[in-house]
């Protein structure tokens, strides 16, 4: 094992690998057992003694098994991060940031320079990644070690090529569970937050993208992973379009600084969520019928040819909804799709290519898929499968293009639900900030014209 492979890492090694270690390698316990408490020191989980038990008074962690099992039979191996980087990369991206984006990018850079814990609340479709570039360029030029992590593999897969293109003279390390390539020590890393559990005080700058992404939103291990992977003197930047209550509380307590980007790149406000209360939407569907308001919206789409997405809480409801639509609008073409659908990619592509007018889907399309000019209908938005964050993301599918920066977001609820209200409130809040920014911008441009 080479020293480089252990810089800033905390690795679980086999006895054979542990026989030949570079000088100075630290051997750290993997589990802490005190009285009734068993805690995993890699992922931070407090474990139930009963379940964590192995024969012979040994213990293991059942929460981070996919990274290889840690137990009282094993240790973690670590070398302090020396920042041994040569050929410091500079920014090769030649795109332009808008005025508000530039302000935000400067704020991000300042947070890196001051080694702050910072939250950037940027609306869906604001162009978050580009706003990172100036700050990242500064950090890399300083010889700092940088990671951009996300709870979701698909976000990492989308980020990696964009960062690689923006810093073309260096090689970006990409780490996630589906990556078979061996680990290489690099200055810039893109990884899942799960992979952060293999790092210890490695990064001077750590960016967490889509921090509130399903399904890790309420995962206490995330905070632990971040705090252990970043150097005590490092900077952490959280990026989100839908901050959780926990994050906002950290802002209130002064543990996080915050900045907003409330406007999309095309400078329009977010479409508002329109709630329709219909206690019987589902019983109507069970009789093959759509409730009146939905009929009305679909009639408009049938005439205008506008594309739309219908979200439902459960996979079993997909076919029923589509059958009801087909009965009323036999000429309108549509498909159903869910996350584990083997034809998922193909169906989404058909929607992109405008071969079909609509998709009936479960929550999976909420992120990453951009379909210009669409409207969105959520049936049963009050169902617990839709979190506040998910609803904000779903609403964020609408109005993404410069050509049609507006659109309708209909949410049909059987009853009032707090998370629907919260989603409305979040959107209204950023829109108020966005309106203020728009007013400032228009004052600026009037002054400039004089």
């Amino acid at each position, binding site marked *: 094992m080479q020293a480089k492979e252990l810089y800033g890492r905390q690795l679980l090694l*086999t*006895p054979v690998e542990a026989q030949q270690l570079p000088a100075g390698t630290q051997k750290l316990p993997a589990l802490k057992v005190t009285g009734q408490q068993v805690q995993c020191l890699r992922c931070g989980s407090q474990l139930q003694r009963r*379940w964590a*038990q*192995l*024969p*012979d008074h*040994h213990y*293991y962690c*059942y929460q981070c*098994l*996919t990274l290889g*099992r840690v*137990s009282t*039979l094993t240790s973690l191996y670590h070398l302090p991060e020396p920042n041994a980087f040569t050929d410091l990369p500079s920014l090769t991206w030649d795109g332009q940031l808008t005025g508000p984006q530039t302000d935000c990018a400067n704020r991000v850079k300042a947070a890196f320079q001051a080694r702050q814990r910072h939250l950037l609340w940027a609306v869906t479709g604001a162009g978050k990644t580009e706003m990172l570039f100036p700050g990242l360029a500064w950090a890399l030029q300083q010889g700092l070690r940088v990671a951009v992590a996300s709870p979701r593999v698909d976000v990492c897969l989308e980020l990696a090529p964009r960062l690689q293109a923006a810093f073309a003279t260096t090689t970006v390390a990409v780490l996630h569970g589906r990556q078979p390539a061996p680990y290489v020590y690099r200055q810039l890393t893109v990884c899942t937050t799960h992979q952060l559990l293999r790092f210890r005080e490695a990064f001077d700058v750590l960016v967490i993208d889509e921090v509130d992404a399903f399904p890790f939103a309420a995962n206490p291990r995330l905070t632990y992973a971040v705090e252990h992977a970043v150097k005590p003197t490092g900077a952490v930047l959280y990026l989100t379009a839908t901050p959780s209550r926990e994050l906002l509380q950290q802002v209130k307590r002064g543990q996080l600084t915050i900045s907003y980007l409330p406007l999309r790149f095309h400078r329009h406000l977010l479409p508002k969520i329109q709630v329709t209360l219909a206690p019987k939407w589902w019983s109507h569907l069970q009789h093959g019928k759509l409730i009146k308001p939905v009929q009305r919206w679909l009639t408009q789409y049938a005439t205008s040819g506008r594309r739309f997405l219908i979200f439902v809480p459960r996979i079993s409801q997909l076919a029923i909804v589509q059958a009801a639509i087909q009965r009323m609008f036999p000429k309108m073409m549509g498909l159903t799709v869910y996350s584990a659908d083997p034809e998922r990619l193909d169906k989404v592509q058909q929607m992109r290519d405008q071969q079909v007018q609509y998709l009936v889907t479960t929550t999976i399309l909420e992120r990453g898929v951009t379909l210009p000019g669409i409207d969105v209908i959520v049936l049963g938005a009050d169902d617990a499968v839709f979190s506040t964050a998910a609803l904000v993301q779903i609403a964020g599918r609408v109005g993404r293009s410069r050509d049609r920066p507006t659109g309708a977001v209909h949410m049909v609820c059987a009853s009032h639900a707090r998370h629907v209200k919260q989603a409305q409130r979040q959107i209204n809040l950023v829109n108020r900030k966005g309106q203020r920014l728009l007013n400032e911008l228009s004052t600026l441009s009037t002054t400039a014209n004089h």
Partner: protein
Amino acid sequence: MNCLLCQRPLTTKLTLKWVLSWQPIVRPVVCSLCWQGFRPIDRQTACPDCGRAQLQPQVCRDCRRWPTQTQFYNQALFEYNSAMQAYFKAYKFQGDFRLRAVFQARLKQTLSTIKADVVVAIPVNPATMQTRGFNQVTGWLAAGENDGWLVTLATTKAIKQATKNRQDRLLTTQPFQLAAEHPDLTGKTVVIVDDVYTTGRTIRYAAMVMLENGAKSVIGLTVAR
């Protein structure tokens, strides 16, 4: 509590029948969907020698390659399908010892239907014990430690089972012996418990040791075949 296999919340439904039966309530540890992934083997039609799932109760092709052994047969609980493969991957190779609970009740219940004088588990070798930290078979039956009186000879750990083909496995010589202190097997019926019956080599060699030491008959009991 969540399902040990898919992590989804478990909903325990108490039926009236259960309540009236006055039986202790065995809390399920896996959800019904995950449990349905395991295919139980029908003993009526299984191979009488190795317990393989079949449509007709005749000695299967694999078993015809073994010398006739009237004092031994194997009984298997489930088919070795993809659900079982995933289970063993998580239990044995990832080392999630919690998963012993999945087959604990089922295996103990089956054992209680077999009239045995002595029950012994196939041991894991010391190197595995060092890294995995438990014996997967006694995990189902007891505390997860080797039984102690059936031991592996040191030479067998040189080559891992998985890297050997069928011929190699059949040719390997007796890997087991009894420890100096062991129960008297004379005239006894011994049940040997193992995780999977694949070629039958492991459990048949263990059976041979028992018979050589005076056992009257040996029954193999495996979770999968």
